[in-house]
């Protein structure tokens, strides 16, 4: 058993201490930072903090109550009164205000008003002015009632059996399983890619013959798969730590991050599906590495595994719209599509227990089968220098070298 750990440790160090791995690891945080930067840039570009003027002929704003506080990342805009339209216009021409509203005498009755601006008004500016108007229209009412009228209703959807509920504030919790699934698939393929590359290299540089006179093919393969899982988990852990730090830093600015809740059921579903999926993908990548003659050929074959894994991502609309349709159930049971399908479905519906059990069962059996296949491919293909091992040989009753 110690040799399995030595192989695993060697493989882990060989890849994790590699510059290519570190760059790959940093690419996701860099991408997230770039995306967040883009969000803040768009918000900043959509915000004009110059005051908004108003000319009130209706008397509604004679003694105005202040506008309600704005929600970050929006910034508050000053509401500046003008006695007449000429004064407001000259302030607009002088660039002191971004626009001015004119409330006619019958505003309270008709609800119509005019706005004058030189440049297109940002939506955040007009929304703040309407909130200001609403606050003054409701002045004198009970503050709680006024607040309830201004803010929209919070609807919580609850499942019939009461086991699950979700509200508009929890939208990130809905997305989380899918994001986690995608992160796992990326990690699976990154680590699996290293594994495949290593096996091909060991064939190409003839290290294989030395290795297999030191360890058994099964020990060698087990060590490599363990290392593959450890590499993938290292990636995910590093990303999770980074995301946690980002959430802590920016939770005051990005309020949607505050309501993240991950249920124990989701975590369990991820464990029973993603762990065997990891083993399955690692073993399949090792199988490819053992059967091909060179790395480039292996890369082409990886598509056969990666494409089905991404099908649920491409069919997200269908899975969200009809999470219990026969097609989606079929995707939930097919080992290569089940991880992402099940995680997306879990956010949208209550998956029947039999489907969870069947999906996990198929996945675990597929993982075991893939490990067997990898071991066989390894034994048959390890000494095929410069020659590809035909897949039919893998399933033949007796191999050339066994």
């Amino acid at each position, binding site marked *: 058993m110690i040799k399995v750990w030595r192989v695993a440790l060697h493989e882990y160090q060989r890849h994790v201490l590699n510059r290519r791995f570190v760059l790959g690891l940093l690419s996701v945080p860099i991408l997230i930072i770039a995306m967040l930067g883009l969000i803040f840039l768009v918000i900043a570009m959509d915000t004009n903090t110059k005051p908004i003027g108003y000319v009130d002929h209706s008397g509604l704003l004679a003694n105005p109550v202040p506008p309600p506080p704005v929600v970050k990342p929006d910034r508050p805009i000053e509401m500046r009164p003008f006695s007449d339209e000429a004064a407001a216009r000259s302030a607009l021409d002088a660039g002191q205000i971004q626009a001015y509203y004119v409330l006619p005498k019958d505003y309270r009755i008709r609800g119509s008003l005019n706005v004058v601006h030189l440049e297109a008004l940002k939506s955040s500016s007009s929304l703040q002015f309407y909130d200001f108007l609403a606050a003054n229209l409701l002045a004198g009412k009970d503050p709680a009632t006024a607040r309830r009228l201004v803010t929209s209703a919070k609807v919580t959807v609850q499942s019939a059996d009461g086991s699950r509920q979700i509200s508009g504030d929890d939208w990130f919790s809905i997305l989380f399983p899918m994001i986690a699934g995608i992160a796992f698939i990326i990690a699976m393929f990154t680590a699996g890619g290293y594994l495949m590359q290593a096996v091909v*290299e060991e064939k190409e*540089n003839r290290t294989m013959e*030395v290795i297999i006179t030191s360890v058994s093919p099964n020990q060698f393969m087990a060590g490599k798969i363990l290392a593959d899982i450890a590499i993938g988990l290292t990636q995910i852990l590093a990303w999770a730590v980074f995301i946690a730090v980002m959430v802590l830093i920016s939770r005051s600015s990005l309020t949607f991050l505050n309501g993240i809740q991950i249920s124990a059921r989701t975590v369990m579903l991820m464990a029973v599906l993603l762990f065997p999926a990891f083993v399955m993908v690692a073993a399949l990548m090792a199988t490819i590495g053992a059967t091909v003659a060179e790395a480039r050929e292996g890369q082409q074959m990886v598509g056969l595994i990666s494409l089905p894994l991404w099908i649920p991502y491409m069919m997200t609309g269908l899975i969200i719209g009809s999470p219990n349709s026969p097609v989606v159930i079929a995707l939930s049971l097919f080992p290569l599509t089940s991880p992402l399908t099940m995680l997306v479905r879990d956010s949208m519906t209550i998956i029947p227990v039999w489907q969870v059990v069947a999906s996990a069962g198929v996945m675990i059996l597929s993982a075991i089968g893939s490990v067997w296949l990898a071991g066989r491919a390894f034994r048959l293909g390890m000494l095929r220098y410069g020659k590809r091992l035909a897949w039919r040989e893998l399933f033949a009753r007796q191999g050339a*070298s066994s």
Partner: protein
Amino acid sequence: MPAVEISQITKSFGALKAVDDVSFIIEKGELFGLLGPNGAGKTTAIRCMLDIFKPDSGSIALLGGPMSESKKDLIGYMPEERGLYQDLPLDRCLTYLGSLKGLSPAEVRRRSAGYLERFDLVAYKTRKVKELSKGMQQKAQIIATILHHPELLIVDEPFGGLDPVNTQMVKDLLREQREQGVTVILCSHQMQLVEELCDRIVLIDHGRVMLYGGLADIRRQFSGNVVKVRTEGTLPDLKGVERIEPMNGSIKLHLDPGTAPQDVLRALVTGNITVDQFEISMPTLDEIFIRVVQGKGDRT
């Protein structure tokens, strides 16, 4: 108990019979030569020995029984196709390969320090293997093969790519291993080195054993039809001599198959020829190899 006992093994790949009814025994502590032309079946025989291939028939006993996982730690194998991790620094590569033979990383470092020193590789131990010359990689591979102090050492073409100084170093190392009781199987095309080092040999061609036994016995078997003679005068016509070949002041007489060296000596004495040297010429292993492989392997 022999170190290796191979009995009638056969291994085919499709229609090709790579090893055909091969049997030989290698005693403990001997330096044994496994010879044969390219594609003769040597590597297949070694792979069968090491359980990389399962023979179709026959049996193999290694260090007293069938090959097992635990015996892998007692065997050092250097294949003809060299295999080191090209992107790893030499010391890390040796540590990994040594640890797979059951040594602790600390023990590997301790042992490899001595070998690196001996093979003049200390200055290169932190360099990546791919940055080393072919000869250096060869020496590194030899270190990886003996690091765990194996009981059975199988080295396939260990002298390839080595200069005369390093060739001598490897020769000394193999002798030293034998003196320490290690059984050494040497595969090489360099017959002169095999002749110098090996006690016994087996020669395989087309998957079959063509020659097997002690080197001296084999040479004796192939001797007898050539005698080396040095005389003061000129040689008279001698019966039974097929061909005369002058060489460095003496003459090589190639005899008919039916003529014994004693017949020639008798004829010289009878003819009153002053003989300074009369020697039954032993063929070199090179000559024997060529004769056997080319199908002229008649023994006396």
